[in-house]
C-alpha cells in the first residue's frame, strides 16, 4: 500500500491521446523541448503518447536528461486505464476522449486539429473551455497553455443524461410517463 502511494506521489504522468485519428501536429508539439520543459517545470515526470494513425515517432527517453521520461504506442484497448492513472491528459478534440476524461475528473487540455476540413470539433472544446471544464489550445500554443494553466480553477464536469429526451419520446409515442 505504502509503495503504491509512494509511486503515485512521485510519478506524475501526462497522457496524450489522439484517439483513432492521425494528429502528428499534436505529437510533434508534445515532443518539442519547450513543451517538455514546461511540463517538467510543473512537476510532471512521465509523458505517455498514444499516437494513433500518425507517422511521426517521438523520441523515447528514460528521463536521464532531467526532463520527462517519454514513451509512446499507437493503439491500446486499455485507454481507460491510461486515463485513470494520468495526472494530466492532453487530448484531440473528439467528444469521446473529452467526455471520458472529464468523467474521470482528470485535468484536461484539448488541442484542436487545425488540419481537419470540417472543423466543427473546436466548437465543443471552446464551449467547455468557456465553462472552465478544460483548457483548449492549438499545437503551436500548447506550451503557453501549459505555462499559464491553473488546474485549481477548473470546474468539475457533471455528466448529463438522456432522461429529458426519453420523456419527450414516451409522450410522443403514447407510452405512460414513468
Amino acid at each position, binding site marked *: 500500500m505504502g509503495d503504491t502511494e509512494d509511486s503515485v506521489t512521485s510519478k506524475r504522468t501526462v497522457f496524450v491521446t489522439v484517439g*483513432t485519428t492521425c494528429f502528428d501536429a499534436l505529437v510533434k508539439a508534445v515532443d518539442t523541448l519547450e513543451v517538455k520543459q514546461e511540463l517538467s517545470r510543473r512537476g510532471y515526470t512521465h509523458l505517455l503518447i498514444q499516437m494513433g494513425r500518425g507517422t511521426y515517432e517521438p523520441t523515447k527517453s528514460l528521463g536521464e536528461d532531467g526532463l520527462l521520461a517519454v514513451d509512446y504506442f499507437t493503439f491500446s484497448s486499455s485507454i481507460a486505464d491510461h486515463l485513470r492513472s494520468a495526472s494530466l491528459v492532453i487530448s484531440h478534440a*473528439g*467528444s*469521446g476522449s473529452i*467526455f471520458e476524461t472529464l468523467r474521470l475528473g482528470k485535468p484536461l487540455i484539448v488541442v484542436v486539429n487545425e488540419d481537419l476540413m470540417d472543423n*466543427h*470539433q473546436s*466548437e*465543443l472544446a*471552446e*464551449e467547455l473551455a468557456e465553462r472552465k471544464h478544460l483548457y483548449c489550445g492549438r499545437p503551436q500554443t500548447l506550451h503557453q497553455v501549459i505555462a499559464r494553466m491553473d488546474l485549481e480553477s477548473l470546474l468539475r464536469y457533471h*455528466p*448529463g*443524461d*438522456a*432522461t*429529458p*429526451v*426519453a420523456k*419527450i*419520446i*414516451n*409522450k*410522443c*409515442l*403514447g*407510452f405512460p410517463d414513468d
Partner: protein
Amino acid sequence: MKEMDDCCFFAIAFIAITVAIIIIRLLHVLYLTGKPRRIKSPQLSALIVLGSGGHTAEMMNLLSVLQMDRFSPRFYIAAATDNMSLQKAHVFEDSLIDNNVIKGVSAQFMQIYRSREVGQSYITSVWTTLLATAHALWLMIKIRPQVVLCNGPGTCIPLCVIAFLFKVMGIRWSSIFYVESIARVKKLSLSGLLLYKLRIADQFFVQWPQLQRKYPRAHYVGCLM
C-alpha cells in the same frame, strides 16, 4: 384531331389530379409530423441507427434510459466500415437479457453501405451513393420500423428519407427522433439541418441552448454525455 385533344386533356387532367393528391397527402403527413401517435400500442418496432464513435456513445446513453421492452423488435444499423458500434449494441442487448428487462432475443443487427467514405472521390461516389440508397431501401422494406432513433452522421439520412416516404405512401407510419450531437454547439450538422429544415424529424433535440435559440422547433435537452 378532336380525339387527340381529348386524349391530351385527359392526360393533363390525370397528371394534375395525381400531383394534387400527392401534394395534399404530403401536406397531411407534414401536418401530422411531430404530433403524438394516434394509434396507441404497447410495443413498437424500432430502428436504431448507430453513427460510430461519439455518435454511438450518445445513442447508447439514450437507450439506457428508455424502457426497451416497449421497443420490440429492435433493429440496429451501423455503417459497414464501423465494426465497434454493433459490438456495443450486442453488449447492451446482452445486459438487457441479463437484467430481465426483456425476455428472449428481440434484436437484430445489420450493416449498411455508406454513400461516401472520408476522402473518396466525387466521381466514384455517384455510384456508391446509388448503391447505398438501394441498400437502404432494401433494409427499410424489410424492417418497416414504427420508430426511428438517430443522431447522425450521414448514414441515417437515406433511412430517414425512406421512412418519411413510407409515411407519405401509406406503407408505414413512423415517428422519427433525431438528437443532434453534443459536438454541435453553434451550428447544426448537415444531417441535422436537412432533417430539421425538411421537417422529416418528428422531434428534434439539441444539447446546447445556443442551438435551440437558432432553431426554435428543436427541444433543448441538456448534455447527454
